[in-house]
């Protein structure tokens, strides 16, 4: 049945398209190949599947074509029918197309008996089930331990609670991961009341297992995903098994999957994207078929979700992007495809890999903003207009005096995103940086030090005195801004600003509101006429210094420690209108004026999106390491130099220590070096035109293509960290580690086959291969047995103490467990 439908589909594709796309799999290509090689004596319609089994018999001319990566010819005898049927029924591991026959030949010189394929497929399914089961079992074992907050659970658990309470907050990562955690908590009956104050706090009666279980659930899928990816790339069960074992038995992956963290969610989507990409590429022989479309769109969805959890998702997007470009380049160079077909391919990818993820990504933010509609700790990071839509914020359904009057107490916010409020505090500029007067900065948090009083420039009388009439501030007036807490005036003078040397310094000057003429500012409303009143929130104002003629602005640069890492405020002599020098009045307190309900113009969704990204990027850039602290360096990671304390430090605590299983990690490290060595030898040999035996050629293709794919993944998920200025942690390496384990699986399987293939007889070769793989599997399992307390928790003396059960296992002095 399956066979028939497959053939039907093939036929339809072949007829409906003007020029059928160049299939990778021979199944499609059979009818056309006859056209290409009319001299081919007797190609039975299904024979091409078996294709390259006897490629040696192809004429030399065709072999050259083969090596250049053009269409392989289909000559030779086929495999048994049953085998064919089964293989066609899968939307082929790509192997079904190009390589499987060679590999099959390389692996078992004897033709497999009929039914062995069915057996093998059943075996694969059984193995997949076993691997999945084992992965779930290890991840869910002792999941409830410890019953207190571990490490970053304090952040992400708290943020989950915010979603349940619908409180607005700010974080440097995009919202999807925390949203899912919140959802899991909500569904499992957590009420969002736990405070998540600091690591070590007991959960008591609060239900936390739902959130941990959700993360563990996603984390458990990493192993089967890796299994399937490797199976698809190498078409070798031992390689896939080895990868799965490495990941199952890695204490690091295990630990990272067991807590309320973003990493299991992120890695789930990264691997899902990788898997669907591999799957859709192996469907390349049937473009525009249903599985092809579904894998392609699944790739796009996973990409959007990966990016929606953390910006690290960019790396997998990059990988899929590079693959897609290579793919399109390949199709574009295939002259048998019309430009229209190539265009269709292009549009399909644009649709599924660009538009779909973009829409999804925006949808995530839309949900995020819709869910969080109550005022919370993140308000001040966003513009006044944005805050107005948060219930509980004082701008929500704001009822404040509408027009600015002398004596009003106000906060002034910069219009540029993520700059903040005009701020001052009782600290002076340090010696050598301008005049030693009080600092003026911008600050993102709401604070009493953001309050300023508007005063007339020439009188110091208290305008709030009830005997005076209310006098409104008008466009073009000359005013003084007095800092409410310190009673110093906003002041500027001909001194260089601390960071932007071309601008003038802005300070707080004077005592109790008495200063000098450098405290006078002309207030102007952008695009308004003279004499107009100034509206709260709506008016876009500029403050022009009367003496020097410069404009008050914020450069957006972060001051050093002396300025508490707030942003620099300057007075810029360039009168260009940029958002940096435009402000609006946000809070407004004036008891003499009636409060009027204002509905502020709500920002549009794209504006909100852009604004939240600006704030996130600024937040990420702000995470800088301090000079004299030990920080984790990217080169530490692959050698498993040092772990992270998840819980506990002393010998009385319940300790969990995030550390990779050293056996697995060091094997991975060796494998990368070995792969590079082997790969370059093979590539150079091929460039020199060496004639590889057919069997070896199949293996090398797996090594170069499949291995190359995961090596690329490893590099993309690892090397960019060397360029990052922000503070880094050990757990940033784990996505790369997944790829590195897949590389190990592929490398050792291929290497053992290559070694065994040379001199030995076939049975011996198989034995060597089996023994090699088995010993690697057992080694990984045994090392897991040794190191499992790291993940499942230890109590008692530390490892340097000889009485500790972990005493002999502190192989590196830098490990602290």
């Amino acid at each position: 049945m399956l066979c028939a439908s497959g053939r039907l589909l093939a036929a339809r594709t072949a007829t409906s398209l003007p020029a059928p796309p160049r299939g990778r799999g021979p199944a499609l290509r059979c009818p056309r190949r006859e056209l290409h090689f009319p001299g081919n004596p007797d190609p039975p319609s299904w024979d091409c599947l078996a294709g390259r089994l006897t490629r040696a018999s192809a004429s030399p001319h065709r072999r050259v074509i083969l090596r250049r990566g053009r269409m392989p010819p289909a000559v030779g005898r086929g495999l048994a029918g049953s085998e064919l049927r089964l293989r066609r029924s899968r939307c082929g591991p790509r192997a079904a197309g190009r390589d499987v026959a060679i590999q099959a030949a390389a692996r078992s010189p004897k033709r497999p008996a009929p039914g062995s394929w069915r057996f093998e497929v059943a075996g694969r399914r059984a193995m997949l089930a076993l691997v999945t089961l084992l992965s779930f079992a290890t991840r869910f074992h002792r999941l409830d331990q410890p019953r207190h907050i571990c490490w970053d659970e304090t952040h992400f658990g708290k943020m989950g609670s915010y979603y349940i309470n619908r409180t607005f907050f700010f974080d440097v990562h995009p919202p999807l991961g925390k949203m899912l955690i919140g959802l899991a908590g909500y569904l499992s009956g957590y009420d969002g009341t736990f405070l998540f104050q600091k690591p070590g706090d007991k959960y008591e009666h609060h239900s936390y297992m739902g959130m941990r279980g959700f993360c563990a659930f996603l984390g458990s899928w990493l192993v089967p995903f890796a299994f399937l990816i490797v199976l698809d790339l190498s078409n070798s069960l031992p390689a896939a098994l080895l990868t799965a074992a490495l990941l199952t038995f890695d204490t690091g992956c295990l630990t990272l999957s067991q807590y309320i963290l973003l990493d299991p969610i992120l890695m789930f989507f990264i691997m899902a994207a990788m898997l669907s990409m591999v799957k859709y590429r192996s469907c390349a022989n049937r473009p525009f078929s249903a599985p092809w479309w579904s894998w392609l769109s699944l790739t796009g969805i996973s990409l959007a979700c990966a990016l929606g959890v953390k910006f690290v998702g960019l790396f997998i997007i990059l990988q899929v992007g590079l693959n897609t470009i290579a793919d399109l380049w390949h199709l574009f160079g295939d002259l048998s495809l019309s430009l229209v077909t190539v265009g269709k391919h292009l549009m399909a990818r644009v649709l599924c890999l660009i538009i779909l993820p973009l829409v999804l990504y925006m949808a995530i933010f839309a949900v995020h903003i819709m869910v969080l509609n109550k005022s919370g700790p993140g308000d001040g990071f966003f513009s006044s207009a944005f805050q107005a839509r948060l219930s509980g914020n004082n701008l929500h359904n704001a009822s404040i005096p509408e027009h600015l009057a002398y004596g009003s107490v106000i906060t002034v916010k910069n219009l540029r995103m993520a700059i903040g409020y005009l701020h001052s505090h009782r600290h002076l500029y340090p010696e050598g940086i301008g005049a030693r007067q009080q600092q003026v900065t911008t600050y993102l948090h709401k604070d009493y030090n953001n309050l300023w009083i508007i005063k007339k420039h020439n009188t110091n009388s208290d305008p709030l005195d009830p005997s005076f009439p209310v006098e409104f501030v008008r466009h073009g007036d000359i005013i003084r801004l007095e800092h409410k807490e310190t009673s110093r005036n906003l002041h500027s003078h001909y001194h260089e600003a601390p960071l932007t040397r071309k601008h003038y310094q802005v300070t707080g000057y004077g005592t109790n509101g008495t200063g000098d003429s450098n405290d006078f500012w002309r207030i102007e409303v952008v695009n308004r006429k003279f004499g107009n009143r100034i509206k709260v929130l709506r008016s876009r104002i500029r403050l022009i210094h009367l003496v020097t003629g410069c404009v008050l602005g914020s450069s957006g640069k972060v001051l050093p420690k002396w300025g508490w890492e707030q942003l620099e405020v300057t007075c810029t002599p360039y009168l260009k209108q940029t958002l940096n020098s435009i402000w609006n009045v946000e809070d407004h307190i004036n008891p003499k004026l009636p409060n009027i309900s204002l509905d502020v113009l709500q920002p549009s969704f794209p504006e909100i999106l852009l604004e939240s990204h600006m704030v996130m990027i600024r937040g990420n850039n702000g995470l800088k390491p301090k000079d004299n602290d030990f920080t984790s360096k990217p080169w530490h990671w692959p050698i498993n130099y040092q772990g992270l304390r998840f819980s506990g430090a002393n010998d009385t605590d319940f300790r969990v220590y995030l550390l990779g299983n050293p056996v697995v990690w060091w094997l991975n490290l060796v494998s990368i070096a070995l792969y590079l060595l082997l790969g370059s030898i093979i590539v150079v040999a091929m460039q020199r035109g060496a004639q590889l035996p057919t069997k070896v050629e199949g293996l090398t293709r797996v090594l170069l293509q499949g291995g190359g794919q995961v090596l690329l993944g490893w590099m993309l998920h690892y090397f960019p960290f060397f360029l990052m200025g922000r503070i880094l942690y050990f757990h940033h390496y784990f996505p790369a580690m997944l790829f590195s384990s897949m590389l190990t699986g592929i490398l050792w399987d291929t290497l053992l086959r290559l070694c065994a293939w040379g001199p030995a007889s076939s049975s011996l070769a198989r034995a060597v291969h089996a023994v090699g793989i088995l010993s690697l599997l057992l080694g990984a399992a045994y090392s897991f047995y040794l190191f499992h307390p790291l993940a499942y928790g230890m109590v008692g003396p530390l490892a340097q103490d000889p009485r500790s059960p972990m005493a002999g296992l502190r192989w590196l002095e830098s490990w602290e467990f």
Partner: protein
Amino acid sequence: MRCQSACAVLGFLNFTQGGLRSLLFYKMLEVLKRPVVVTTNINLNIVALTGVGLLSRLWHLSYPRAVVFDEVYYGQYISFYMNRVFFLDDSGPPFGHMLLALGGYLGGFDGNFLWNRIGAEYTSNVPVWALRLLPALAGALSVPMAYQIVVELRFSHCTAMGAALLLLIENALVTQSRLMLLESPLIFFNLLAVLSYLKFFNCQKHRPFSLPWWFWLMLTGVACACAVGIKYMGIFTYLLVLGVAAVHAWHLIGDQTLSNVLVLYHLLARAVALLVTPVTLYLLFFYIHLTLLCRSGPHDQIMSSAFQASLEGGLARITQGQPLEVAFGSQVTLRNIFGKPLPCWLHSHQNTYPIIYENGRGSSHQQQVTCYPFKDVNNWWVVKDPGRHQLVVSNPPRPVRHGDVVQLVHGMTTRFLNTHDVAAPLSSHAQEVSCYVDYNISVPAQNLWRLDIVNRQSDRDTWKTILSAVRFVHLNTSAVLKLSGAHLPDWGFRQLEVVGEKLSRGHHESMAWNVEEHRYGTSQEQRDRELELHAPTQVDVSRNLSFMARFSELQWRMLTLRGEDAEHKYSSTPLEWVTLDTSIAYWLHPRTSAQIHLVGNIVIWASASLATATYVLLFLWYLLRRRRDVHDLPEDVWLHWVLAGTLCTGGWALNYLPFFLMEKTLFLYHYLPALAFQLLLLPLVLQHVYDHLCRSRVQRHLFSTLVVAWYSVACHVSNKLRPLTYGDSSLTPGELLALRWRDSWDILIRKS
């Protein structure tokens, strides 16, 4: 070719002795018959270009006789070289500085000039002409080199002239090469590397392993090393050349007409010339640098004690004759090895920690322990054996070994270094370190420290002056003595905070200390014995420190030294460079409004950017069409087009784009090396358009006319900006305002 010559040699050997002799005789006769003729090809284009290049760069070279912009900075280093005083400059390796100093040496400069401000008049002992000569020569020779590069790229001589002329009249390049600055030598070596690689590559087809082949190959490596040696930026061009060479080598590997051995020879030759030679040369620069600079100077403090001791004067004078091994009773100063934010010594003084800090936390109110960046009598500590009471060295001295427990006694106050479970003043997660004052309250003294020698050879290694890096691990709390890097507030005299780090997350250099000054403890009655003890072990670190150790330390410090990230008045961002939205005022005449201003020829900059964009678009267009098997260009034209583009566009991109990732202060002149590559590309694109895109004669004529017109405009603009380039004529404010074509150009206008 090679085979033929080998055959000839074989044939020659077959001659008999007599035959050989008669042959020689015959040859001599021939010489007598014919006149001696020397034929040379002189390309007058090159001669002319060199001539005008020299004229434009050397004309009035010693004007202005005043410090111009960054000369104030490089001049200092020249003086240091002349006085052979050690300095550290993190802006680049020493070759560039040495090149400038060579000019000073040739001009007989004695180094006596105070380089303190821009605009200061040079005194008569400063050979301004000689100092500015080498950069100017480099700038002048870049002009004919551009010509040759374009010719080697197989474009026409006319195009080559165009490229050279662009380099000649570009105002920014002229300004930059007429002063003691490093950009013009950098551009020179960049271009030289590209040129010699092209010459080598063109030799490759016909005469591999011939003399010119070797010469150009080696010159490529040498030029790359020099470029990197002048500024780290040179590494971009080096990478470009390496990349192109790797691709060509890859083709060579794929060439199956060559035997394996021959391919191996080819690869080895390239590896030697392009990898080994540059590395060796780079080390050589540092070797010369360190050999020349043998005296201590103002930057000593940044280096480790061992390095300082290897310089004449300074620390070496102090530490000479110090005992090597620290013993119980030794008096020492302890310097932090990390030394950031400032190099400093462990310090204590009478003052105590305030009882209550500003934020309301309490302290132990014991004596402050800080890290102090200046030499001071309060930096002295005595190493005491907890088991004995004496503060003097016993006879024979008992050296302190790794793992020993010691007490540290502050020399001036005789109080013990102590730490306890009280939060440190600023780093509240760590423990406070104090000198113990007994207030008779519940806090007991916890003043035992275990010595942990980080760089020990064996577990019983002794503690050595200067050489050992040690950690002090507190016995009671296992906290480690550490420099936190924070400045204490006024009550701590803005000295640096020292803490006991409880949860040390791995080893960090801020926890390591070394003994710098050291003497065996004496008291009045023991002085005679002390004199005897003084003699035997002495440190002579200057001989202990190998070149490689000195080199690696210096290199490491240069790469990690972080200057102030304060912005300069004339600094700019990479985006402003392409559009020439920025300029730098280099110098203003003290009385008139004559001034030197780094500003580019705006016509050339705009058209160069346009040409780059055109190239990229055309390249992509051709590439896509070739993929569909449509060949617009003949194969060899396409190959030349790709090679030219890789070198010129690649050179531009590699020298420009990385600046977007850099966090340091950037200036317009950082763009000049990239610009030089862009200027090479511009005429190539023009020729390509003329040859392949203009179909009819009319179009070609029209295009040529346009090019000539454009060229005249460029020359005109160049001439307009000439007063700002040479700074030789004073302009009225009106004229200056007229030159201010962009608002962002800071042309200085004197208010009368």
